[in-house]
């Protein structure tokens, strides 16, 4: 019998400029196979990963932003987003993708995955983990 640990993937980089954001997503999807309690945190430039309307055609890059909406199917349903990081970048929740997950214990009701927390709240989330992986 395995022990379930709390894993937090911390995202602090913008998408596309470096490979960190895309690699983090790859690792989360691989890690999802191990039935752990997985959360993701988005702070600093990491909040830019979740913006809606990303169109990478002209830039010739792979648009990986739709993958965030598939995380619920891998039981990754807690995406913590820091309010202060949004504020500093002139963003609101409305600028982010609508990411939902289906709660099979609640008649498959669709529930929002994004949880906006304060900087202090984010510190609490971090302090509550067994394992933290930073990207």
């Amino acid at each position, binding site marked *: 019998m395995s022990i379930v640990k709390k894993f937090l993937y911390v995202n602090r980089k*913008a998408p596309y*400029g470096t490979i960190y954001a895309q690699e983090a997503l790859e690792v989360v999807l691989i890690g999802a196979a191990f039935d752990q309690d997985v959360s993701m945190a988005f702070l600093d*430039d990491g909040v830019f990963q979740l913006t809606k*309307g990303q169109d*990478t055609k*002209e*830039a010739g890059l792979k648009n990986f932003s739709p993958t965030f909406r598939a995380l619920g199917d891998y039981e990754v349903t807690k995406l913590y987003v820091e309010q202060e990081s949004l504020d500093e*970048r*002139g963003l609101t929740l409305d600028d982010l993708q609508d990411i939902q997950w289906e709660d099979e214990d609640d008649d498959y009701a669709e529930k929002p995955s994004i949880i906006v927390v304060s900087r202090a709240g984010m510190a609490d989330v971090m302090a509550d983990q067994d394992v933290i992986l930073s990207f």
Partner: protein
Amino acid sequence: MATLHTVNKSPFQNQTLISCLGHAKVGDSVLLMEDGVYGAMSGTAMSEVVAGMGANVKLFVLGADVSARGIDASRVAEGITSVNYEEFVGMAASCDRVQNWL
């Protein structure tokens, strides 16, 4: 004798854009590209600094990198001109030198 400066780092992540604007001469052009395009957004904690320090240069932003990041064109600050790749090449060819602030 004008220089084209390019900045490809987010101004929220490090001081590259600030340093570039602090060194650019009157009449130079500064092109924000890749993660540098976040410096072109209005209504952020960096907007006023960029507008103030960039008052004596011509500010440009690479449109393809704006679209890739889900930034609506309406969010690009006033006074910053959006260019495509072809125009970028033209700017690089017509200036005296290019300085990349990596």
